[in-house]
């Protein structure tokens, strides 16, 4: 089975590096980290991810704007997006991911088990 391609858009290089390391070390995933939000579209067109992990609060362009640009692109509009956010409390997510409208949010700091579970659910769909 081909490894799943995950694009991580996140301004904190430590987060992108640790996500790449942990997801790839277990096998089954290829991860590309993008720390500059405005460059997401280019990165996604080249990388063609199966899923995008997108930080909500970023300095130059926030996660909502990036998602709008991705949805407007015919090549990428169907790629599932999981938002990573520090601004939801445990009570709102029960410590797990939670769909809010059409979007899926994963509360930081997510651990590997939780993260993989969320990725698998969305990659299956």
């Amino acid at each position, binding site marked *: 089975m081909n490894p799943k391609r995950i694009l991580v858009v996140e301004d*904190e290089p*430590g*987060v992108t*590096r*640790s*996500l790449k*390391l*942990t997801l790839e*070390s*277990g096998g089954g995933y290829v991860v590309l980290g993008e720390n500059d939000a405005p460059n997401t579209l280019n990165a996604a067109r080249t990388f063609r991810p199966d899923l995008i992990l997108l930080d909500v*609060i970023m300095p130059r362009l926030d996660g909502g704007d990036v998602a709008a640009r991705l949805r407007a692109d015919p090549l990428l509009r169907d790629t599932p997006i999981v938002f*990573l956010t*520090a*601004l*939801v*409390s*445990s*009570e*709102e997510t029960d410590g797990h991911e939670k769909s809010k409208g059409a979007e899926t949010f994963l509360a*930081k*700091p*997510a*651990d*590997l*088990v939780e*993260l993989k579970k969320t990725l698998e659910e969305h990659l299956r769909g």
Partner: protein
Amino acid sequence: MPVRVGLLLGSVAAVGWVDFLTGFEVSVSFLYLLPIALGTRVAGRSVGNLVALVSAGAWRGADLLAGHTYGYWLIPLWDTLMFASTLLVVVALLASLREANEGLEQTVSRRTQSLQAENAQRRRAEEDLRQALGDVRKAQAELRRTQFQLIEAAKMESAARLAAGIAHEVKNPLMTLSLGMDYFLNRPPENADEAQLTQDMKEAVHRASDVINVLLDYARPRPLERTSEDIHNIIEQSLTLVRHPLSRQHVTVVREFDPMVSPVWLDRTRIEHVFVNLFLNAMQAMPPGGTLTVRTLPSEPGGGDNDAPAGVIVEVDDTGHGIMPANLSRVFEPFFTTKPPGQGSGLGLAIAHKIMEIHGGSIRLSNRNEGGARATLQFNTEPKDRS
């Protein structure tokens, strides 16, 4: 009036008759003053004058009838004129007295009326003033409430901003640490200590994250999702959530539930949060083997405010060391804690207070006479006008 005049003239005739019969000049003549005084007093100056003139006539008539003779015809005429004049002077004096009395009475009556009117006006003015004072007091209280709400809202807004900033700045590095720990945990450890250390680090990340979540919950409470609930179910569920720590501390749980209390109108998850917090606080305040009593009772409708709905009171008693009197007024302040560093965020009771407040209920803490502390919570029932 004619009857009165007739009676007066009759009495004059009677006096004249006595005058004629007795012939005592001076002594009897004084009797004429009686009908004159009476007439003037009762009917006024004109009637008095009339009675005086008739009396003078009667006096002279009685004299003539008695057959008295005078040396010169002018003498009886002169006497009669003198007598009539004396009587008329008496009438004039009495009439003046009567008129002065009447004038005085009128003046007193006029002044009394004017005083009464002034008093009524003063009473009305007092009433208006009292009403205005009440309105001012009400407006002042309203202003104070609005001011308090504005200050609270401003405080909450800055707290929410601060919490969001902290969450963003702290949770990103925590995410890196958490994933890093996972990476090490997935590799075979070199020894048992390393595995334990990695696990401890992972738990430390969780704890730090929990503190941030508590801060977020406090600073930005989400809207309530209220349903009508049996308060006993919520208490039982909350006791289930803390049964392990309670049993580790050998805490005895006593339930004193009133089965007749009404269903309450609340956000179940958030009220469970309040109870869990209170139960854990109670447990931490007691030495092992303490007793936790949870009691429910109906609250009286009104409570000073007639519009307040009936509700349910829940009391949570512990057998611990109680709360220092100096701390009683501060226990609901954010970040106030008496626990050792690292064992409490100081936000638990502040959040419980906020949750009860947004439910329109209340929470207060007190020391029990028997020892230990009591938390008293007031819940409202479902509003009747809810649509």
